[in-house]
C-alpha cells in the first residue's frame, strides 16, 4: 500500500513495535510533528511526551522520554531511551519521572549555568503536563 510506511520503535532494552503505519505524531524537541508517508528525511530529538501511532489496524500511544526520531525514505524509526505503552503507564511511573526531573532541576539550580536550569525546568513542566494530559 502506498499510504503506509514502516515504523519502528526501539528502546535500548528491546524493540517495542515494528509495523506499517499511516501517521505518527512525534513529540519533537521543537514541537510536535506528524510524520506521514513520503515525509522529507528528518532527524529530530525528542522531548518527553506521547508518541501517537496510527496504523490501519488501529491507533496506539506510547510514553517516550529522551532519544530521537529518524525519518527517511523507507519509514520512521524512533529510538527512545525509555518507551512505555500508554496502557501500561501508571501514576507511579509518572511520579518516578517527575521526581527524576525535579532532582535534575534542583541539581541544576546549584550550578550557575542558566541554560541547564531552563532545560531542567522545561523537562519538569513537560512531565507534569503529561500527567494532566493523561488524566492520571
Amino acid at each position: 500500500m502506498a499510504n503506509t510506511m514502516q515504523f519502528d520503535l526501539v528502546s535500548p532494552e528491546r524493540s517495542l513495535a515494528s509495523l506499517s503505519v499511516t501517521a505518527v505524531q512525534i513529540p519533537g524537541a521543537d514541537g510536535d510533528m506528524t510524520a506521514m508517508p513520503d515525509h522529507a528525511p528528518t532527524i529530530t530529538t525528542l522531548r518527553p511526551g506521547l508518541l501517537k501511532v496510527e496504523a490501519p489496524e488501529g491507533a496506539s500511544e506510547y510514553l517516550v522520554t529522551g532519544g530521537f526520531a529518524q525519518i527517511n525514505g523507507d519509514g520512521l524509526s524512533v529510538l527512545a531511551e525509555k518507551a512505555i505503552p500508554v496502557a501500561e503507564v501508571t501514576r507511579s511511573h509518572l511520579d518516578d519521572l517527575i521526581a527524576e526531573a525535579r532532582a535534575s532541576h534542583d541539581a541544576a539550580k546549584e550550578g550557575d549555568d542558566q541554560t541547564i536550569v531552563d532545560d531542567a525546568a522545561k523537562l519538569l513542566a513537560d512531565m507534569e503536563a503529561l500527567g494532566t494530559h493523561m488524566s492520571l
Partner: protein
Amino acid sequence: MPNLKDLKNRIESVKSTRKITKAMQMVAAAKLRRAQESAEASRPYAERFNAVMAGLAASVGGSDSAPKLLRGTGSDDVHLLVVMTAERGLCGGFNSNIAKLARQKAEELRLKGKTVKVLTVGKKGRDALKRDLGDLFVGHVDLSEFKRIGYTNAQDIAKDILSRFDGGEFDVATIFYSKFVNVVTQIPTAQQVIPASFEETEGDDSGAVFDYEPSEEAILADLLPKGVATAIFSALLENGASEQGARMSAMDNATRNAGEMIDKLTIQFNRSRQAVITNELIEIISGAEAL
C-alpha cells in the same frame, strides 16, 4: 597404599564436587540463553543509533564547533580505562583475560609517558588488577545487587564517566569488555568511547539528506552522552553473555574432569580391595599349612 576408607571418602567428595559443577553448568546455560536474548534485543537500538551518529559525526565532526565528546580535549595525556568484568569467579579465563588486556594497555600507555586511571566495574576485575594497578584506581562500580542489567545501570556508569570528563579528569576513555562470539569463544575487546568514534555506515542512508531539528550541533550534543551510555550498555550485555558462556564451558570441563577422576579412583579402590582380600586369603592358607 592409601587405605580403603580414605579412598572411599575421596570418591564421595569428588562425586559431590561433580554434582555442584554440573548444577552450575546448567544454571549458566539457562542464564546464558537469557543474556543472549537481551544482548540481541539491544542490538537494533545500538545499530541504528550508531548509524545516525556516524552520519552526524561525519558532517559536523571536522568543524571546530564540534562537541568535546566527539573532538576530544585536544590532548591525550590522561587515559581512563574502564575495566568491566564479572562479579563472580568460576568462569574460566573470562575475568583474567579482560584484566590481562587492560594490564597490557596500561603498561603500553605508561611506557609512552601517559597518565593512566582505572575505573573498575565488577568485583573480579578489581581484585585482579589491585596488585599491579591498585594505585591508579579512581573508582569502582558494584553491580552485584542487580540481577538483570538494565539500561539504567549503564546510564549511571556513563553519568559517572561523563562527570569526570567534564571535570577534566581525563582525555581519552576506553572500555574493556569481552565480546561474545559463541559459548567457547569470547574475545576481550578494548573500545574507545571518548572521544567517540563511530563505524562508517554501510551506505544505507548516505543518499538521503536529512533535515535536522533542532540544529545538527544541538542534536549531536544531546546524543553524544547517550552514545556513551549505549556503548556501555551493549558492552555490559556482551559481557553478561560472555560470562555465562565462559562459566558454562569451564563447568563442563570441570564436570568431565571430575568424572575421569572418579573412574580412576574407583579402579584404585577396587584394586586395593582385591589386594586386601588376597592378603587375607594368603594369611589363612599359610596359617592352615603351618598346622
